């Protein structure tokens, strides 16, 4: 019996060793001390699961830091003057502060207002027309657009490859000094995914940690009564749909919005519903920044809606708002400003 047991043990050991050797290639890699440090993505309480697939691009301290350096680096533009941050300024929730149309290389205007960057992990499409279907390919558009950063991906790679600091950071974040579109974009995504705005007064109220004052609570009530929340759905204050809110097409821009992407006339003049988070710091408003003042936006819905074949049924007949109601609504919209977000040093220029 004892003999049998010894033989059995020997067999067991040998066979397990055999398995270990045979399967070596598929075994789990050892974690070395130089591996990047994983960063968990925190979903704010009560929020849905993010849409972004983190398994394809796991967040790490080194990846985020590299993305941050890239976001603020003018080398990504042709003449060095236009980092991503030139149009996406933290003080304006990463929209352009006080500019209607974004402008870029060689004094050129774009046809649209830079959108705020926040809660991107939950965003299904990007740009006012939703033309971009994945965060990881989004930066390629402004980098290569001749009226924005006006640079080619080849040149970006050449310029970054000349910098010893970048070589080190790519090595630390991705285990290789070799820069290519994929790891540049993934680092930028990692940084942008950290732009989570969930600490406004509104959020504190939702979590029972603060209370609205009277105008704020009246404004929130009006916000729901007037069905603003049909499109500006909580907690993101957008349903990410494309709608024509009755803004006349500006003849100089001839921007048909979503139709440019789908080629379908029913999408003419439709633009993505913007989030209202940080709305008070990200003026001017609308896809082309044509309205500078939040009260004027409310007045647009009150009396300014232009009826066309694609105007959204929810606003086609206007949304009647008294001056009193506008005042309360703006008091509520003020509670969506997230000071912690726009002052977060981890999102600031390194």
């Amino acid at each position, binding site marked *: 019996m004892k003999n*049998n047991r010894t*033989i*059995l043990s020997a*067999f*067991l050991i040998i*066979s*397990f060793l*055999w*398995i270990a050797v*045979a*399967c070596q*290639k*598929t075994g789990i890699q050892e974690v070395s001390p130089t591996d990047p440090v994983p960063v968990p993505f925190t979903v704010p309480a009560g929020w849905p699961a993010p849409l972004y*697939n983190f398994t*394809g*691009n796991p967040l790490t301290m080194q990846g985020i830091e590299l993305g941050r350096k890239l976001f603020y680096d003018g080398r990504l533009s042709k003449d060095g003057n236009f980092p991503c941050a030139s149009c996406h300024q933290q003080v304006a929730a990463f929209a352009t502060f006080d500019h209607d149309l974004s402008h870029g290389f060689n004094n050129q205007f774009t046809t649209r207002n830079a959108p705020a960057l926040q809660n991107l992990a939950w965003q299904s499409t990007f*740009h006012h027309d939703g*033309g*971009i*279907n*994945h*965060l*990881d*390919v989004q930066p*390629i*558009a402004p980098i*290569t*657009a001749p009226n924005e950063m006006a640079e080619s*991906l*080849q040149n970006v*790679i050449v310029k970054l490859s000349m910098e010893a600091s970048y070589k080190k950071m790519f090595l630390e974040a991705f285990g290789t000094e070799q820069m*290519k*579109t*994929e790891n540049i*974009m*993934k680092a930028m995504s990692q940084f942008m995914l950290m732009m989570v705005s969930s600490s406004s007064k509104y959020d504190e109220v939702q979590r029972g940690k603060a209370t609205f004052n009277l105008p704020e609570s009246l404004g929130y009530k009006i916000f729901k009564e007037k069905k603003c929340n049909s499109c500006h759905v909580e907690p993101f204050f957008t349903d990410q749909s494309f709608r024509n809110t009755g803004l006349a097409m500006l003849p100089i821009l001839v921007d048909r919005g979503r139709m*440019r*992407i789908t*080629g379908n006339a029913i999408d003419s003049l439709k633009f993505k519903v913007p989030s209202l988070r940080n709305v008070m710091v990200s003026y001017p408003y609308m896809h082309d920044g044509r309205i500078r003042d939040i009260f004027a936006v409310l007045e647009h819905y009150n009396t300014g809606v232009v009826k066309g074949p694609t105007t959204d049924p929810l606003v086609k007949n206007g949304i009647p708002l008294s001056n009193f109601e506008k005042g309360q609504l703006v008091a509520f919209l003020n509670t969506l400003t997230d000071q912690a977000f726009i002052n977060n040093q981890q999102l600031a220029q390194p």
Partner: protein
Amino acid sequence: MKKALNVLIFTGLFGLIGCQQENSINIQQAPLKVSFSHTASNKVLELGKPLLNPFGEVYTINSFSYYISHFSLITVQGSEVELPVSYFLISEKQPVSKKINFDAPAGNYKAIRLMIGVDSTRNVSGVQSGALDPVNGMFWTWNTGYIFAKLEGKSPASIAPMQNVTYHIGGFSSPYNAIRMVELPLPEVLKLRAGGQANLSVEANVDAWFNSKNPIRITQEAFCMNPGTLALKISENYANMFTVLKVNN
């Protein structure tokens, strides 16, 4: 002892299952080389040289490239053998890109199937590398998606600025899905053997872009830079551009 044997058998089996992925490649693999040549107006394509399209319109080509992927082979018995998915960007400007290599199961085949373009998954899953790296310039930045095939040149018949002829063809979603699967019959049986040196010579005839299923005249359509009806029509045309000229076993 019997027990020990049982354990050995059990663990051995477990080992087999655990390593299944490595052991399953038992069928002999054989190398296959595919060489592409490009023609237009019944001549070998030369960039920048004047050409006549099937409608007699004079034009020149400066750039001609396309993605091919999702290869499979049709056995002489008629069954389809799908090869592991790989993506190739064939470009007239890059002679080295016109010869591609992969391994396929040994066997006798009568046809080859391939996709002209990039499958929808790769169009929606973010940034890619290798042949699909957006740095290759076959990627729409403002309306995410790959340009499946590109033909750029000039023609006096073009009403576009600089008399440009610009056909950027792509679109992966309905109703403008320009992804094309094509089956190319082989002029003789391809005999893939381990250690062999089989080679297929495939010709792509640019004339097909203009006049195959749909007539495309430069005078009327000098540029296409969006997914849409025109891109769809041109993709239906270039789906017929390939011919397998020769099989070298």
